[in-house]
């Protein structure tokens, strides 16, 4: 290990104790895996004092752990679920827990988190930091809508605890919302408190295949009828693993309600929808969401539901044909594949002129550095984001390419 790296390792062992989990990655970079929130704070405090640049990692299965840094800090040893109350439908979980492990812990107590982000082996913190939502966003809201509170450790090691454990809370400013989906710009999320539901009683999926715009129109008809399905997802042929586009409609709730919804959905559109058997429905959603989508880059584009065809045309024009899903009710197109920074930047700027924000959810360091997770900000926004970053990370410890203005 290089001299500087050795110094850092020694410093960390002196702070966290000889038992601290410190290793090196493939490139010889030191990596620390604190087992407590306090450990995370101590490391970042030292980093700020000593001028280290730190890259934050979860389990490395979404954003690749490739940003240049002096130290990598992983949350993978923060895996506890210190609080789970099935009567109050509230749980607190540490950020390093694998999503599937969290789901199991919740299910064991008869509870459920109505969120299905892609990538089952990701850490909870990765989902929170990147704001990646799955198809259930249409019916149940974005991931930030499930957060009652978080613990964030700032770039200089301060521990901040906004929110609380109750389902309604307006005390103080909503730092929880700021932390979610900001790609680690404001600190490391070490734990989150989640609002849960009971395990759904009925869960039905209907599908139709056909041409893109036919299916989009069918989806619009469903929404116009006043129905809000749990998921209303359009899949490109590649995402559907077939040769046609697919529309998947998922209905979740009490038996009678789901039954009524199913009738309403069928009545709302001419397009014929087939109800899948439970096993096939499971297979469809798992196939779509178990792993990160293919390709090295994943991005999402926001649009009005009525402008999704335009958004899809824009993507098709700028990016190679690939894996695409559309969460119609939430107005989001997600594309995944391999492409260049220039193409993404051009798409971002063209889209921005139509008031469609583009977020880079996942990419190699090279792409992230050139494109930034966010960009083409509205006037005045960049300044605010920059000032907030300096507030939370005055020493510039955290390595993250939040904006294209960096």
């Amino acid at each position: 290990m290089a001299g500087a790296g050795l110094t850092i390792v020694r410093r960390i062992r002196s702070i966290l104790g000889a038992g601290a989990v410190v290793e090196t990655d493939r490139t010889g970079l030191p990596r620390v895996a604190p087992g407590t929130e306090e450990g995370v704070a101590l490391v970042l405090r030292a980093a700020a004092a000593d001028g280290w640049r730190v890259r934050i990692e979860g389990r490395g299965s979404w954003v690749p752990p490739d940003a240049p840094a002096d130290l990598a800090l992983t949350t993978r040893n923060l895996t506890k679920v210190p609080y789970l109350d099935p009567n109050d439908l509230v749980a607190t979980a540490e950020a390093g827990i694998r999503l599937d492990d969290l789901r199991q812990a919740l299910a064991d107590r008869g509870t459920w988190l109505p969120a299905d982000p892609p990538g089952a082996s990701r850490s909870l913190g990765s989902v929170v930091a990147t704001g990646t939502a799955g198809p259930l966003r249409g019916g149940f809201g974005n991931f930030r809508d499930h957060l009652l509170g978080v613990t964030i450790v700032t770039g200089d090691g301060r521990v901040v605890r906004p929110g609380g454990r109750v389902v309604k809370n307006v005390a103080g400013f909503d730092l929880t919302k700021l932390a979610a989906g900001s790609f680690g710009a404001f600190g490391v999320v070490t734990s989150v408190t989640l609002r849960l539901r009971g395990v759904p009683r009925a869960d039905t999926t209907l599908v139709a295949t056909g041409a893109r715009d036919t299916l989009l129109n069918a989806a619009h008809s469903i929404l116009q009828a006043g129905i809000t399905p749990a998921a209303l997802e359009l899949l490109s042929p590649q995402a559907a693993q077939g040769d046609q586009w697919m529309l998947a409609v998922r209905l979740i709730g009490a038996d009678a309600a789901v039954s009524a919804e199913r009738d309403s959905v069928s009545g709302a559109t001419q397009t014929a929808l087939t109800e899948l058997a439970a096993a096939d429905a499971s297979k469809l959603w798992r196939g779509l969401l178990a792993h990160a989508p293919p390709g090295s880059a994943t991005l999402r584009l926001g649009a009005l539901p009525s402008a999704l065809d335009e958004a899809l045309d824009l993507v098709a024009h700028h990016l190679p044909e690939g894996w695409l899903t559309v969460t119609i009710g939430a107005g989001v197109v997600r594309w995944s594949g391999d492409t260049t920074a220039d193409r993404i930047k051009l798409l971002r700027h063209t889209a921005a002129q139509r008031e469609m924000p583009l977020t880079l959810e996942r990419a190699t360091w090279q792409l992230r550095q050139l494109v930034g997770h966010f960009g083409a900000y509205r006037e005045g926004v960049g300044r605010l984001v920059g000032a907030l970053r300096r507030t939370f990370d005055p020493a510039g410890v955290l390595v993250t390419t939040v904006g294209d203005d960096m």
Partner: protein
Amino acid sequence: MMNTRRLPRVPAQALDAITAIVGPRWIRRAPSELDTYASDGLPTHRSRPAVVVLPGTCDQVARVVRILAHFGIPFVARGAGTGLSGGALAHEDAVLLVLTRLNRILEIDPENRRAVVEPGVVNARLTAAAARHGLHYAPDPSSQTACTIGGNVAENAGGPHCLKYGVTANHILELEVVLPDGSVTTLGSPYLEPWGPDLLGLFVGSEGMFGIATRITVRLTPTPKAVRTLLADFGSLRTAGEAVSAIITSGLVPAALEMMDRNCVAAVEASIYAAGYPTDAAAVLLVELDGLAEGAVATECEEIERLLREHGARGVRVATDERDRARLWQGRKKAFGALGRMSPDLVVQDAVVPRSALPNVLERIGVIAESFGLNVSNVFHAGDGNLHPNISFDRERPRELERVERGSAAIMQACIAAGGTITGEHGVGIDKLRYMPDVFDSETLGAMRAIRRVFDPEERANPVKVIPVHACREWLASPRTRHRAGAAAGAAGAAEAARAAGAAEAARAGAAAEAAATAGSSSSIVLDRPGSSGREGVE
């Protein structure tokens, strides 16, 4: 640390500039006029502003704020003044910007289930306007026939139906915001995707301390086709609380789940809003279910009815028609008003507790009420655990105010001890400032203050609310942020002030000399401000 060099009144030159922007008809200065704006929905806090300004357009708001920035004058934005935390109160050195003239619904976009409104649009009016499209605006605070969307955004307002549909933060898509330096920015995007880090989510509920939202894009929700409303009565608060828990854990999600205790029911039934609630009950629950189809909702209704009876309901009544339903709801929505008529003074809290703690906390509130000799009525959003203990009293009675304050504090501590928080929808304002250190440590309070200073480096937007400054751990503000904000204010505000000063001088030759003298002293204070305030950097 307050800036002790702040001017005690609004300088004449500033007032002239503002008057030139909005027109003299829309300035209020007479004491009797100012009294109208000296309190909000809470009778216990009163504060008269220096002057009231009623801008008529978004552009006027921005221009007025630029003047205020130039002169370093604090300000408070106000909607209908129905708030319950003293958030819309301004001190005598501040300008109160009343936004009720900005009451236009700019666009309704039914295809995309959204609308664009000015901040002064009344909540219920927005729902009424969306009705013909089969849509409504879901967050429904009890004050919805008077309160404004802008106020709802500032407080992150809730209401009974937020149990199923979410609070204001879940229904705001985009905000055009005038920042305290007078610059204008847009947070969010036309629909649900954030545009950058979630500054929109951060702004909602910031109680007017980050700036003024002048254009608000909201989500509209399909109006349910089928609704059932039930009223159940119970022999004790405890059993009612247990019934609430049972409903929550059943997996069914009611549209609303409200509770009222005996005192509250008595007040409602004695008023013009009498809804036929059973006056011999210790508690009543109002449960509403909604959905797409009659049959499905009827089935859920049967299940809820069974659960209620299994958990101690003595009687369960299902509303027979829309009129009956409206009557049941009116009783609930006007409960606060009915209580307010019972005594000269009223204190209302807004704590939230875990639902499973409701039975114990309700019992504890009863014990506290008795030990302090207080008249407490409970009307609240049981489904969320959002309590509203109302304390009726008469401050003229000897030592009553003191007992109320101590009892109030005891109730709040009981809620916090049960794992709760201090405010679920009314906001902190001034009213709950003293409890903030009980729920947030000094590091977290320091972070909140530092964030506020990013938006408002000089802390002039709704000063002295929400964050108890003495309890914050210091976070250094970035010098670059300060200077940039100051420069922006200086350039735009100075230009506007100069134009107005010119006009005033032409109109009133005699006052010109005075205006010039005032301009001289005020501009020197503005120039001193960034360095001398003592609030930036380490204190």
